């Protein structure tokens, strides 16, 4: 009998700590599959963020490290410049990447660092208890926007679009994991992003709209609907820069 589903070699056979319906687990799985399919498990080094995915290194069967909150792309820069033949990725939430680490992500992208960024946009700070993120929707209730976010707290930040104007960025794509078709597209985009690095072309990033049922105060099913109804209109999906063609 042909085995059609098993644990990627790039992942450890352990339970994760993520909440029911959280997107991190799905995204981890896609990342593991891509690393396996590209045959790069033994030459990949990952940098985990500060956020809910802080212990991602316990789930991947690859060399990994941590970074101070938001400095993730700077740590990845140091690794990649010393080991240019290795594959280096960061895995970051929207607080890590789009608030405290805005400077590091823009400048790593602007230098065209040969790294791949997996950017998990869940419109909230999960780790610290559901506070507003830079990507929080207008009107969204969080621990620090009890009346809903209004524009005096800023507008949902579109980091991928901001990065697109930088010559150093080669592949930028926004996907969602709100349904099986979108999950498949997410995997394609992740694969492409790693291929861009393998071809030494420049900086690549995949922004993934991902559910946080716990802090959206929704059921896992409602959370997926909320991505489609609320997030996608604000964060349109698709390739923002480069192309997916040869993935």
């Amino acid at each position, binding site marked *: 009998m042909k085995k059609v589903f098993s644990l990627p070699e790039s992942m450890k056979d352990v339970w994760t700590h993520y909440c029911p319906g959280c997107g991190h687990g799905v995204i981890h799985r896609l990342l593991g599959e891509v690393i396996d399919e590209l045959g790069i498990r033994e030459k990949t080094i990952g940098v*985990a963020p500060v956020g809910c995915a802080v212990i991602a290194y316990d789930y991947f069967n690859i060399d990994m490290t941590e970074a101070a909150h938001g400095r993730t792309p700077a740590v990845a820069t140091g690794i990649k410049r010393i080991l240019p033949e290795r594959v280096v990725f960061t895995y970051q939430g929207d607080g890590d990447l789009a608030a405290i680490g805005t400077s590091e992500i823009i*400048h790593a992208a602007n230098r065209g660092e040969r790294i791949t960024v997996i950017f998990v946009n869940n419109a909230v700070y999960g780790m610290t208890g559901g506070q507003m993120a830079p990507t929080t929707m207008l009107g969204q209730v969080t621990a620090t926007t009890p009346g809903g976010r209004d524009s005096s707290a800023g507008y949902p930040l579109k980091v991928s679009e901001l990065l697109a104007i930088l010559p150093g960025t080669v592949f930028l794509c926004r996907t969602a994991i709100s349904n099986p078709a979108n999950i498949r597209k997410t995997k394609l985009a992740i694969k492409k992003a790693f291929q861009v690095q393998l071809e030494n072309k420049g900086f690549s990033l995949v922004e993934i709209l991902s559910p946080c049922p716990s802090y959206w105060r929704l059921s896992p099913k409602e959370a997926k609907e909320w991505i489609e109804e609320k997030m996608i209109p604000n964060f349109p999906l698709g390739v923002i820069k480069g192309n997916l063609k040869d993935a």
Partner: protein
Amino acid sequence: MSEKVLMCGNEVVGEAAIQAGCRFYAGYPITPQNELTAYMARRMPEEGGVFIQAESELAAISMVFGASLAGARAMTSSSSPGISLKQEGISYLAGNELPAVIVNMMRGGPGLGNIAPAQSDYFQATKGGGHGDYNLIVFGPANVQELAELMGAAFDLADRYRNPVLILGDGILGQMMEPVKIKKRVGKLACPEKDWILTGAKGRSPRIIRSLILKEGELEKHNRHLQDKFRVMKEKEILYEEEGIDDAEIILVAYGTSARIAKAALNQVKSEGIRAGIIRPITLWPFPEKVIADVSSRINCFLVIEMSAGQMVEDVRLAVSGKCPVHFYGRTGGGVPTAEEISRKIRELL
């Protein structure tokens, strides 16, 4: 470069680091250490190393973190306000047990202060600086030649203990030109084999480098392990220079630039028949407390001289533990004491 050449301290730091095998430098410009960043920009590519002008000191120190865990001898440099920003990454380096060398050419503070030489980051350098229970080996070189020699020691010790090492200089040391002989490394470096670095899990199980330790009791265990390392450093790595302390009635304690000036004062008062000696700590952490304690019951008093409002003086007082008076003369905010000022103070005290 085995002959004597005339170079400024900042450039000497760069060349000595390269000769010690440093192949990664990331920095952000700030006076008075800019010559170093520019030197590395020119020299690193010649040596096949990496130079990055980082977007901030926060990023620079995190780049060093990445380069270090990938196996490189890595360094960064700055001056006081920039070193404050680097504290985040220094704490992470210590927690993750990553070697690195950090250079602080101190300037006047607090705040933006000024760009004149100062020694007012002593507390920050020797008492932790960032968050958490950790220490750095801190060198306080007093001249350009010593700076060159301590750079090599700094990289070796950083690797040996897997802990960051800090060079604490000041604007005078960084910008002063002096004749210097930089040891040229020949052959393979005395760099220990690093069996803990991340290179991709090829033919071995994956490695994780992290400072987050959540399991109950495990962080305390890790911290006790770090404390064990710090204890060994205290036993083995103390360096100081002393002169004329055996029959002294007064002993000066000063490091770096202040120590040079203190020595000039020492010579002035000695010619007047005053029996004065000097203890010059070369490692500021670990601090040479034993030699200070040992002489304290047989002398009249200590005089500590700093380009600060009085920081190292607290460590001297701890070592002396009330056995004799510890006086202080300091200039702050970029003021530099003169030998005459110090001599006058000595005469006053006796």
